[in-house]
Every structure is written in structure tokens, then in C-alpha cells.
């Protein structure tokens, strides 16, 4: 080749674009230390594995056990621990004060697909790295199918305090539409085992599945209440683009319920749960007592600090948000080469932080402070906000207001 010929791109750049390229970027934590002592610190651990992928699921999860290298199920705990150590180093480098971890949440995926020993090792690494607050809340999500009395006892012994079961429904045809493989009868059993192990119990329910009648939903609610969990979450089914269910809906095989159907189901849930002694504390969450509210999730809604471990996990420290690469393989490769697996990040402006505070805090029963008295009066008059708290300058939503929370956000932010 002639020396005078300049190739269209240098060899170095060509490698950058190749399959060995690192899709990660350096994390810029400058300035996030300010006010950190006033913020709680939590850790989220994403476990990206499931036995079966459900048709509605758009979470970052994989059913293969063998993704290769540090992304395999059996090597995953070590990879996650690697990120924990990198996280601490990055926070130290940014002068973020070491704070005990107040909450840890293992989500997925199906965390309990990993051996309890693996979850325990990750938790131990978190404790070794940052220490755990004395009253730390340690939650794991679980599929009713993937637990045994032994594994639950192991988790409790390792320090887990709370377990959240993906019950979704008590109605077989609804579970089938959702591709949930568990036997509804298995749920009370798993709940009993968890209680016996000393864990607080939460159940997740989904409403608005295609084909679910109001009676079906009532049956699921009553079945859940019957098990007397400490905490309940009820989510309207959202069909995300790209899921199997989205394709079924597009092809007309499944018919989505309209918003009114979902509104009716939410109202039913709120009525039955209230009657059974539960208190809503966030739009989709109810607990028997304030102690049983999920403190980890409340931290999200109150813009506290947390580090998300695992592929696709999101993090937030002092107005800086970032998210990890989604696929477990490049994730593992980055961690193995001692790089944080950051795929993207954003530094929030003051306006963006204010917008987020409004859209998050309005969801909470503790209320969102609002200085605009006229708007408070209007929200009460429109049946969206409760009159009592409004007198104290707080927006606490009524049942109707919770269903129309986006409108309330728009009005508070001057969009409506």
C-alpha cells in the first residue's frame, strides 16, 4: 500500500467501532457530594435472570443460564460484587461521604433463581463496603415457585428482612395470559414459609390484564387479603412496545381494557384494601402500618441517593442520574476490566430536579408541599386533593386524584 494513501479511518477508530468496543463511559460525579449527609443511601441489585420470560415483561432479564463469562448465572454474584467495589471507589474519589446503607433491594428478573448463598454474598459485600444501618431494610423479590423453606430461612439468617412475591393474580386464566407459570395455591404456602422464617411479606398484583373481569380482580384481591401480607402493590398492566404481549395486542389476539376499566379496578382495590386495614402510602402501594412501607422505594420517590448494581440498573446521587449497559455480557466485561459499566448519564438542572420532585412526591400519602394556595383550593374543589392536608400547604391526593395524578402534576407545573 502506498504511504501517501490516507485510509478513511485510523485503525484505532476502527477497533472502537468493532465488537470489542466498550459501550461504557466514565461516570462524572463532580458536585454530587453536596448535601449528601442529608440524604439516605440505598443499594439496588438487579438480577437479570428468569426461568421463563413473561409475555408482558419488558425488564432487562434473560432466561439462558449460560450467557458466558461473568454474565453467567453462576458467576453473576461475583460480577455484581465487583461493581459494588468499583462503586465505593468512585464515590470516594468524588468525596461522597461514606454512609451506612439504609435499604437494599434485590430485584429482577427473579433474584431467587440465584442460590441464596449468592444473594447472601452480594449482601455481605455491600455490608463490607459501606456497612449497613442497624435497622436496614433488606428486600428481595421472589417468584412463589422459586423459594423453599430452606432458602427463605437462609435469606433471613443472612439479614434479609422482607420478601416481595410476584403473585399477580389468583385467577388461572389471568395468570395464563400473563405467562405466569406458578400454581395459585403455591402462593399462600410461600407466604407461610416466609413468615415462619421471620420475613415481612409483600405481594404484587397486576390488574387490567386482557380478559380479566372485575369479578376476577376482586377474587385476586380477596385472595391476597386472605393471606394477610404486610404490604401490597397493585399495578395496572402496561403493555410496553417490543414485548410478546404488545404483538398479541397488535394482532388482535388480546384486547386491552380501556382506562375506565382500570380506573374501576383501582377504585375497587383501594376500597377493599382500606376495608381490610391497609393504608395507601403511594399510588400503587398499601401497607398495614407505616413500619411496613417499603423504605427503599420511598427513597426513589423522595429523590434520595442510591446505587443500582447490575446490567441496566439506574442510579441517582445528588441530582446525577445514570444507567448501566443493558446486556449482562458487556456489563460483566466492563466490571472485569475495572470500569464502571455506565451506558449513559444526565446531570439534572434545578428545573429538572424540581419537576421530578413534583411528579414523584405527589404520588405519596405524606404529600407534596405546594405554596400556591389558589391552586391548592382548586385541586380540593376538583376533588383531586384532600382538604385537611391542603390547609397545611400539602397536596395529598384523593382516590380520584391518585388516578389523575398526571393532571395534577401538569397543573402544579403550569402545563394545564
Amino acid at each position, binding site marked *: 500500500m502506498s504511504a501517501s494513501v490516507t485510509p478513511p479511518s485510523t485503525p484505532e477508530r476502527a477497533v472502537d467501532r468493532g465488537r470489542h468496543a466498550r459501550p461504557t463511559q466514565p461516570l462524572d460525579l463532580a458536585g454530587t457530594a453536596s448535601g449528601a449527609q442529608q440524604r439516605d443511601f440505598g443499594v*439496588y441489585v438487579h438480577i437479570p435472570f428468569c426461568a421463563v420470560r413473561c409475555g408482558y415483561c419488558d425488564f432487562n432479564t434473560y432466561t439462558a443460564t449460560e450467557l458466558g463469562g461473568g454474565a453467567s448465572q453462576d458467576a453473576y454474584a461475583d460480577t455484581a460484587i465487583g461493581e459494588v467495589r468499583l462503586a465505593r471507589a468512585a464515590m470516594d474519589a468524588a468525596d461522597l461521604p461514606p454512609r451506612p446503607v439504609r435499604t437494599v433491594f434485590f430485584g429482577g428478573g427473579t433474584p431467587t433463581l440465584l442460590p441464596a448463598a449468592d444473594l447472601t454474598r452480594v449482601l455481605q459485600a455491600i455490608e463490607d463496603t459501606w456497612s449497613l444501618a442497624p435497622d436496614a431494610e433488606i428486600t428481595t423479590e421472589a417468584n412463589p415457585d422459586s423459594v423453599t423453606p430452606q432458602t427463605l430461612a437462609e435469606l433471613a439468617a443472612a439479614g434479609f428482612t422482607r420478601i416481595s412475591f410476584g403473585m399477580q393474580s389468583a385467577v388461572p386464566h389471568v395468570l395464563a395470559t400473563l405467562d405466569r407459570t406458578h400454581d395459585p395455591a403455591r402462593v399462600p404456602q410461600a407466604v407461610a414459609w416466609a413468615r415462619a422464617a421471620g420475613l415481612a411479606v409483600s405481594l404484587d398484583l397486576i390488574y387490567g390484564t386482557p380478559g380479566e373481569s372485575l369479578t376476577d380482580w376482586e377474587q385476586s384481591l380477596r385472595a391476597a387479603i386472605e393471606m394477610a401480607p404486610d404490604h401490597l402493590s*397493585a*399495578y*395496572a398492566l*402496561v403493555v410496553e412496545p417490543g414485548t410478546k404481549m404488545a404483538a398479541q395486542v397488535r394482532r388482535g389476539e388480546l384486547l386491552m381494557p380501556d*382506562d*375506565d376499566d*382500570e*380506573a*374501576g379496578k*383501582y377504585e375497587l382495590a383501594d376500597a377493599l384494601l382500606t376495608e381490610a386495614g391497609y393504608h395507601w402510602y403511594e*399510588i*400503587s402501594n398499601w401497607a398495614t402500618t407505616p413500619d411496613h412501607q417499603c423504605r427503599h*422505594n420511598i427513597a*426513589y*420517590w423522595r429523590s434520595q441517593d*442510591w446505587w*443500582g448494581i447490575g446490567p*441496566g*440498573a*439506574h*442510579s*441517582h446521587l445528588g441530582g446525577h*442520574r445514570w*444507567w448501566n449497559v443493558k446486556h449482562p455480557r458487556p456489563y460483566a466485561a466492563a466490571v472485569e476490566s475495572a470500569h464502571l459499566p455506565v451506558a449513559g448519564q*444526565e446531570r439534572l438542572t434545578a428545573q*429538572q430536579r424540581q*419537576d*421530578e420532585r413534583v*411528579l*414523584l412526591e405527589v*404520588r405519596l400519602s405524606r404529600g407534596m408541599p405546594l405554596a400556591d394556595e389558589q391552586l391548592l383550593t382548586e385541586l380540593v374543589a*376538583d376533588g*383531586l386533593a384532600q382538604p385537611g392536608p391542603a390547609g397545611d400547604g400539602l397536596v395529598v391526593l384523593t382516590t*380520584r386524584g*391518585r*388516578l*389523575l*395524578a*398526571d*393532571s395534577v*402534576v*401538569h397543573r402544579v*407545573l403550569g*402545563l*394545564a
Partner: protein
Amino acid sequence: MPPIATPETLERIQPAATAPDLLRNFCIIAHIDHGKSTLADRMLQMTGVVEERLMRAQFLDRMDIERERGITIKSQAVRMPWQVGEQAFALNMIDTPGHVDFSYEVSRSLAACEGAILLVDAAQGIEAQTLANLYMAMEHDLAIIPVLNKIDLPAAQPERFAEELAGLIGVEPEECLLVSGKTGAGVEELLDQIVAQIPSPQGQVDAPARAMIFDSVYDTYRGVVTYVRVVDGHLSRGQKVQMMSTGDTHELQEIGVISPDPTTAAGLGVGEVGYLITGAKEVRQSRVGDTVTTQNDPATEPLAGYRDPQPMVFSGLYPIDGSDYPALRDALDKLKLNDAALDYEPETSVALGFGFRCGFLGLLHLEIVRERLEREFDLDLIATTPNVVYQVTMEDGTEVEVTNPSEFPAGKIASVTEPTVTATILTPSDFVGPVMELCQNRRGVMEGMDYLSPERVELRYTLPLGEIIFDFFDQLKSRTRGYASLDYEAAGEQDADLVKVDILLQGEQVDAFSAIVHRDKAYSYGVMMTGKLKELIPRQQFEVPIQAAIGARIIARETVRAIRKDVLAKCYGGDISRKRKLLERQKEGKKRMKNIGRVEVPQEAFVAALATDGGGDS
């Protein structure tokens, strides 16, 4: 090769020095798509005016829209040399606009000619439009050369359509020339026949100059370029000329011919066709149909036929982004430089914000203006449903002219008059029934019906203009599988039982949807519009009634049910950025929201309601 004139013979046909008997002025009368521009291109090539390598399709159509739509909006004139035997001639081809909206401009182009090529697609036969222009050419006593084009097409039926043409103009079928603009077949013969059949111009060489303006175009660099045909006398560079309708004087900064680019000349003599540049800044100073004379030796009588263009169709044009209003005003000001028929004045709409009520010659004119505004000035616009102008007489005798339905007066009305047209429709005889039904639905009164041939019928109707400006042509096409053609001309006014239907959102009038319709159609308009808006207006936190009303009387009602749920149940760590970004997009979208009372409606809903068809006939 065809007999292109030699340099010696060319000397005898130079501008300002060509004897009238060596001139031939002609135009081509043709329907859209019948191949006029392609034939013109071929003539330019064969006469050597445009070299083959410079040829681009439809050389004469300058604007992008014209080239894309394959129609000519503005006419032009090209001078071409052609030799027959030993003699060179100068042929002026005057390109005419091809749409009913511009029929006045067509008539001026025809008045500049002694002959016309009647060009008809040999696979389709003559269309109503062409027929109307043919009649107009015959009124001007033009020599008509019947030509069937596209004879290279497999579907061509030259014998059949030669009969039709021959019957229309009173010649033998064999006298129809057969050409293909595409292959060039027959074009030389056509050029020879232009020389042979079209009379040379007659005029008084020594009389005071009189030149008729048949087109006037604004050019960014040159100002207004005026196209004229000299009838009497002579125009020379540097002279002071006078526009006879206004008395305004200008200096002839430049004079010349187009061949095919502007070529300056010392002047233009009797019978010649060319252009003038006077430094005028807008085409209104140089109006089509006006007569140009010289200031020193002015003519006393202007040439016949001048008239002011009158807008027939009105529509509100609004920028979708309100901050584009000044840009829209500037753009209209610029278009006006080149469009003597465009009228506009500011208006305000509750639903649409600030915009302009614009007057147009017709629907195509509206579409073209709108498209040019969007394309050349990069504006996003909404146009309200077009309407005509109504004369309302109140019981107390006061008269109100209504160009915007929302200004239709309340109170006791004695009478309302609306403009009418006489429409000529050509259709295959199989579709006479559906066409008659359509015309009756649109309050048409049949004036006559003739069979042009056993397969083709000419129907003549008087119709209210307001009934045909919206979707009549689309309906006509769909009922005749695209075969029918339409032409119309203004036919005065008539009294009619017209009412204003208002559309109310939660009791608030949405001005952009008010319509003036015949009393018998008020209900169906109300049902249609309320139904359409129901689908388009997003649910609010309260129930929103959508009503149609005549005055205080409600004639139709729909309800947008109150929304009960708008929130997403889940919002955890990874959802927060996504939700905030959605909120930021909604903040952007807020600019496009319009409030009608308490009801918040995205502008897209109004746009969609205005954009879709009226659906009144199906």
C-alpha cells in the same frame, strides 16, 4: 435533421426587426397530463433553442411545484426559429396555465395569439377543462390545429378521438395531426403546420404603441418581469411607458425575448412577444390584461378585456406555531409580489390564534399558495375549510358581506345571496346517473346535456360555488372512476336558505368550525363535525359536551366523557428519567395546546378535524 434556420435567414427574424408576416404566435390548449410540457420541450429541442444536453423535463415550468405536479401555474413565452422552404419564421409559443382557477390568465394568453394547438391525449380524449379553453380560443377567432398526443402509447385510440376532435371544431378526422411529445414523432410536421395554418399577426405599425400584458412575474433579482404581446406600434429600450389602467409610468430598463433564456433586444414591434423590465416591485403594478403604451405618444383606447382578479374562495391560514405569525405575514407579502390575485387581511381565531383571512381565485390557487408558503418559507399551516363570499341583507335593510362564517350576523335576516357557477362536466355515459345525483345533492340545477359521442356526455349545471369548492371534484372523480372532468365559470348570485352552524365546546363557540350551509344540510354538518371532534378531543377531567347549533338552537350533540385515569401505576428508579422526559416533551407540546374555555385541545385535533373530508355525500 429538421430545417433549422441558417445564420443568414436568422438575420431576417431578429427581434424588433421581424416583419409581422414572418411571425406566428400560438399557444397550446391541453388538459393536465395530456403532455403539453413534453411537447413544448420537444419543440424547443427541434428548433435548436435548447440543446439536447441541457434539456430537462418540462423546461418551461419554473417552479418546483409546477414540475412535481406536472401543471403550469404561470405562463411564459418562448421564441423559436423555424424554416419552411427558404423562409425563416419566428414562432412564439405562449404557454398557458392549465387550471380553471386561472381562466382569466388563460384568456389573456389566448388574446396574445393568432392560433392554438388543441392537444389531446390519444388515450383519453378531450376533458372539460380543455373544452372550455377550446371554446374560449374559438371566441377569440384563433386558428385551431387539432393534435392527438401520446400516439406511442399502447392504449392510444387516435381514430376514435380524432372523430371526437373533428366533430368539435368542424374539420375532417384526417386533419388531426398525430404526434408523440415523448418520441418526437410528428413534431416537425406540427411545426410546419403552425407556419402554414396560423395567420400572421395584424397591427398598425405606425400607430401609438399598445401592448397587452399576458403575464407578470416577480423575480428576486430583476423585480417584476412583464410579458407582453405588442399589438400596435413599437416599444423600445429606454422609453417611458405607461400602464393604461392606472396611469403609472415606468422606464423600460430592459426589453427582450425569451429563447429560452431572456435575451435583450432593441425593442419589440407589431405582433412580437417578449418581456419588459421596468423596476416595478410587485406584480400589481403590472397587471395581467392591462395595456402598455408609451408616455410620449400614448394610445387613447386600451385593448379590450382588462379586469381585476376577484377572489372567489376564502380560507383562514394560521401558523401552527403561533410564533410564526410574523413569518407568515412576511411570506404572504412576498408571495403577493408575484400574485396579483392573492388577498389577505389579519384575523384572530379562538381555536387557531393569529392568522390571515385569505382570498383566492379558486381551490387550486389556495392549495398552491399554501404549498408555497409551507415549502418556500418553511411554515407549518392550518387552513380553515374554504368558503365563498355571502351577501346578507338584514330586515332593517343593512347589508353585510361575509367572507368568514364566524362573522355571519346574528339577528333578523331578510335574505342571503351566494355566488353560483355554471359547471360543465364531461363524463363517460355510464356514469351520468351518479354525476347527476352528486349535482342534485349539491343543489345543482341542470341546464343541459349533450352526447359528444355515444360514450361521452357533456352535462351543464348551475351550482352554488360554495357547494363545489370543498370536495366536489374529489367526489366527482370517485363516482366516475376518475374519468369525469370539470370546468366552471362564475354565473352571478342567487338567494338561498342558508344558515350558520356553530360548533360549541362546553358552550364555547369554536370559531374555526362555524360553517354557512344550506338549511337542509345543517343537521348533517352538525352531526358530522360533532362526531369528528368527539374522536379527536382528548378526554378532560370533566365531561365535555360538543354541540352544533343554529343560533341558540342545538341541532346535534356528542359528549366526550370525563377521563378517570391518566397516571401510570409504576414509577421506580429506572422509570423516573423516562417520566420526566415525557413531561418535558409535554411542556413543549403545551405550546400547541389551545384552550376553549376550560377545555384544552391539542392543535393537532383542530388540524385533523379541518384536514379530513367533509363526508357529506357518502
